[in-house]
């Protein structure tokens, strides 16, 4: 079985841990648990007749702003950046954040995920897509289990490239 380290990055409270929980345990907790530094989860995913053991490093923020050890970003095969659709401050500087992650991890691509779609209407999401400086790959809701599987499947595929 192949084992891959993948990153999940984003500011505090954007719902990274909830996404991992939904993906790994397929459940959602209403309790808010903030992430301190890094939380590691593992999940084995079958993709293209191949079993991949994902080691998901759920990292809070980027090294420069939140003083996260640079070593957390090293050796990763793919990364997913999560922002909160309902909080503007989590996506306004997205392009800079993504550049910083690419520099730290050495990755060419980062998957962009807007989470908490359950809190916004379709029109509001449409407006956000126009403001966000990069292309959003997935609009998810950990609470309603919307698009979570899809986002992680793409992460797994990218980790195999």
């Amino acid at each position, binding site marked *: 079985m192949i084992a891959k380290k993948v990153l999940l990055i984003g500011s505090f409270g954007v719902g990274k841990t909830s996404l991992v929980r939904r993906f790994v345990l397929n459940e959602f907790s209403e309790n808010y648990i903030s992430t301190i*530094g890094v939380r590691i989860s593992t999940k084995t995913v079958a993709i293209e007749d191949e079993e991949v053991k994902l080691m998901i490093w759920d990292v809070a923020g980027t090294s420069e702003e939140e003083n996260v*050890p640079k070593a957390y970003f*090293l050796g990763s095969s793919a990364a997913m950046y999560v922002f909160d659709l309902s909080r503007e401050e989590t996506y306004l500087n997205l392009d800079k954040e993504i550049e910083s992650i690419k520099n730290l991890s050495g990755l060419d691509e980062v998957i962009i995920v807007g989470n908490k779609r359950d809190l916004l209407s379709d029109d509001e999401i449409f407006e956000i897509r126009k403001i966000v400086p990069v292309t959003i790959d997935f609009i998810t809701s950990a609470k309603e289990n919307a698009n979570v599987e899809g986002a992680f499947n793409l992460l797994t595929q990218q980790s195999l490239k």
Partner: protein
Amino acid sequence: MRETTVDNKKDNRFEILKELLLTDDRQKFESLRDQFLEKDKIRENINPVVDEKIDDLKANFPEHFGDQITESIKVQIRESQDEVVEALYPIMGKLVKKFIIAEITKLTESINQTINDKFSLTQILKRLFKGKRTDADDVLQEVFEPIIEEVFVIGEKTGLLIGSYSRGNIADKDMVSGMLTAIKSFAEDAFKKEGQDLEDIKFETFQLSMVNYNSIYIATATSGVITSEFKEELSDNLNTLAEKILRDRTYLNDENKLNKLIEDILILD
């Protein structure tokens, strides 16, 4: 007309008098009777409800009053700490004493056994030819013998588990490897010691040692008293293990092969 024994006039008067005197009493009697009958009626209606409530209380007492009772006990304990300590002290004292006696007995037996072995004729002869080690070292070494409990060979940057050996039952070794790598990175970053690595973590009877090599690091968890002799031997064996892995990179992609190598070099050797 024949006269009767009844004096109608007199009797009527008595009746009238009775009426006059007892009207209040009769009204009170009527009222009391009504009240009594009313109570019976109410009782008939209320009894089943009360019974039901009593049954519910019996069955769900902890749910209804658990919190209040717990709170009340907490308050009681808090306010009467001296009394609680006084009541529990003799019982706890006996338990602690019993535990300590049992442990000291085990330790004494173990030390006696080791001393007997050490002072046997064969051992005395052996001692004549040995080096610097003292008898105390020998006794300690045998009573608290260091044991390698866990070994993890981990990718230095990825934190991915490449191979392992385990005496215990660690549920998710991959997660442990990841967390160890994160802790290591965090400690090295927090103390800003560039070029220096986190090497040891000690907790109770366990010591976790991490040795870095090119692209991998090896973490070993050891229990018991770690003597300098054991440390040297472990270090030599770890170097041998790392050398073999790095010379033959197929070990990095074959977990079973690597696990066997770890066992051969660190455990069976």
